[in-house]
């Protein structure tokens, strides 16, 4: 890295004065900033407001035990949402043509089934882990190929892959529960330090690792450039398709990883993994409102994961029908996507 201002001093010996209001940014930017601020602060306020309400209405809500519970329960969705976030970063946040991976939940289901089936077949945890991660990676590779080689939009490509994967899971498990137990699985689903589930630590650790990679390395910066403005990325010498493929591989891997966590959490592989899709999409989209630039970030996604899980947990504690949760999640998607789309459109004017 030898880029610095040194050679510029020969190119330009004296400054050219920029007279036109040097510190003034474009008109309209202020209004947009204000709206973004309102959206962010508003979301935070709603988040905190909901937590306070639950704490008052259901005193058990705000206890170390329950918070640990929430974290543990959200581990699987959180890992999937982090995978989806990577894809949205690299594919762009346009809801129709941008990055999305609908196959993530089904991927988790199949990976879990592979893991449980391998244990049933007498294999050890190491083989099962490789099997589950490998399954996720292959699914990611198929997505990547369909999108970058065949040129299908991610929304459609991953929808197709989702159905194929869900079908494979049915074939493998005959639509039944495949129980699985091992020392490793028990260790992961156990309670860790401070009585908080190990799964909670796994989520936090994983989020920290991916956040370091995505928010703090050149790789991450380039990933954002590819998603936000592919032409600019190309002009900067980046190989756009390579980054997009990489993002889908990473997301596939997240699916496999979430599969392992789910086998541990549920002591086996169960059907109905597809139900996980909606909360994961809500989480990843909701995460964007926690960022100043209204872009997906790993930190924002982690916050959103906790919000969505608290919501589900709070509803349970208050004995509100769980069928309502789906409706609330659908509403959240509509709200978040309209707000960010409107603001982005305003920003582009």
């Amino acid at each position: 890295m030898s880029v610095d201002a040194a050679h510029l001093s020969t190119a330009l010996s004296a400054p050219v004065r920029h007279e036109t209001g040097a510190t003034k940014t474009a008109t309209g930017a202020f209004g947009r900033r204000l709206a973004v601020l309102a959206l962010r602060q508003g979301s935070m306020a709603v988040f905190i407001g909901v937590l306070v309400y639950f704490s008052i209405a259901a005193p058990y809500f705000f206890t170390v035990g329950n918070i640990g519970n929430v974290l543990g329960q959200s581990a699987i969705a959180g890992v999937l949402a982090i995978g989806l976030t990577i894809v949205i970063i690299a594919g762009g946040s346009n809801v129709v043509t941008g990055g999305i991976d609908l196959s993530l939940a089904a991927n988790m289901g199949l990976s879990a089934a592979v893991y449980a089936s391998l244990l049933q077949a007498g294999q050890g945890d190491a083989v099962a882990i490789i099997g589950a991660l490998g399954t996720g990676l292959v699914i990611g590779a198929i997505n990547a190929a369909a999108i970058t080689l065949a040129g299908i939009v991610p929304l459609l490509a991953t929808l197709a892959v989702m159905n194929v994967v869900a079908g494979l899971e049915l074939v493998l498990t005959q639509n039944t529960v495949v129980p699985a137990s091992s020392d490793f699985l028990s260790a992961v689903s156990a309670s860790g330090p401070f009585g908080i589930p190990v799964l909670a630590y796994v989520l936090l650790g994983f989020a920290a690792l991916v956040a370091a990679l995505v928010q703090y390395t050149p790789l991450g910066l380039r990933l954002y450039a590819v998603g936000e403005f592919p032409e600019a990325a190309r002009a900067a010498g980046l190989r756009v398709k390579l980054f997009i493929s990489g993002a889908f591989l990473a997301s596939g891997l997240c699916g496999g990883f979430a599969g392992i966590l789910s086998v541990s959490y549920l002591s086996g592989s169960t059907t109905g993994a597809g139900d996980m899709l909606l909360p994961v999409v809500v989480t990843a989209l909701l995460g964007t409102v926690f960022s100043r630039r209204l872009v997906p970030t790993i930190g924002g996604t982690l916050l959103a994961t906790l919000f969505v899980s608290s919501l589900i947990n709070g509803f349970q504690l208050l004995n509100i029908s769980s069928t309502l949760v789906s409706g609330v999640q659908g509403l959240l998607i509509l709200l978040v996507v309209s707000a960010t789309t409107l603001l982005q459109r305003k920003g582009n004017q």
Partner: protein
Amino acid sequence: MATSVVWNEADDIIRLSDIVKRFGGAQALSGASLAVRRGTVHGLVGQNGAGKSTLIKLLAGLHAADEGVIEIDGTAYASLSPQQVEHLGIHFIHQDRLLVPTFTVGEALFLGREPRIPGTPFLDRKRMRQTSAEILDRYFGLRLPHSALIGELTAAEKQIVQITRALLDNPKILVFDEPTAALVRREAELLFTLIRRLRDEGITILYISHYLSEIVDLCDTVTVLRNGRDVATLPVKKTSAKEIGALMVNRDIAELYPKPKVLPGRPFLELDGLGLANRYADVSLTLHRGEVLGLTGLVGSGAKELLRTLFGLETATAGTVAIEGETVFSASPAAATAKRLALVPEDRRRDGVALDLTVSENTTLASLDRFGRAGLLDKGAEKRQARELIERLQIKTDSADALVRTLSGGNQQKVAIAKWLSRQSEIYLLDEPSVGVDIAAKVEIYTLIGELAARGAAVIVLSSDIDELLGITDRVLVFFRGRITREFISAETSPDQVLAELTGANETLRHVG
């Protein structure tokens, strides 16, 4: 090939010789040459379609030449790849600024060559921030808040960021493609000062612009392209904007314009002080029945926006529009068509016709209520109308049931006009009506425009082809930076007069404040 100045060849950093480039049947370049002397600012001008952008894309490695040689710094290349171009130290400052809007200035500057915190894989954001702030302040006097995002900068600020990005790579050659298109005058002056300084420090500049006044101000040498070849390379000191303009204009096809003599009738459309914020201001004109009025102007001059306003696609922010003395307010295309206005848009394949409908369906598309019978479509009446129009406009099609997609460009354009004839529209707004059609079809379209006027309609033609415009209109209004700066009587005007006005060659530049 008519190079009137011969340089010592060793001094040329870029030499493009006898370049030929075809796209399908169309010949974009037919033996163009360009020699740029080291350490100079070299202008490149030409009308739309003269081959400027093709030549630049060849230099950028985006196209490969069919014939000819490219020499950079004394080495000959059959073709270049974008990577090679960058390696050779050639950088492009694009019209559309390629910067990620959600990035900070530091991130945008260093994308692709990010500094890392020593000994870690992590971005050195502090260094990115400090270095970029330091460079921008020291060399451009530009101070931006640390957190400023690219999307929040003005066009001029973005351009400075883009130039800085190129400078970080220590370039030998900088190519500016219409850099002032989005700048106001003061910002453009700043850019010129900067370009001269870069030249004085030894960087060679290739400068492409429509504004001839800029070329004369800024460049040392200018090459004029016309019809895919270079017609002259001149030292700017020994020429003038008018002479350059005259060289750009094509004089070969002047006899193409059959213009019937129509005496203008009663005033039909009257605009008084019409304005659209930041686009154009103070447009007043009267259009008579039987009159063909020409509009022309560079991209962003406001001419196209005026047509869009008249058709209800934009809402005027000042002034009034009156049709036959009655003030009208067209807030939507539906309201405009009801007032007998018709727009034939520039991109006819996208906006002008429905490619996958038949000729018959297209011709009646804007007037379907005339063909209804008890809520159903009277297919017989529709077809009779279509046949009549096919006959009248001499649309070359196998039948009224052929898909419009199968027609030639010129015939598609006739269908786009037929749609409004069926609607009995009387004020025709034609946006670049002959773009992309062959010469024979052009003449047919011109004849059709003449017929419309002869039948008492009023026609406004917006075109960037000045020969065409003078050939088919009665009057031509020139837009420059948002205002009508000049009115010409077509029959008494030569193309270079219009071009000089259009490009601001004999203007002190004006713009809408």
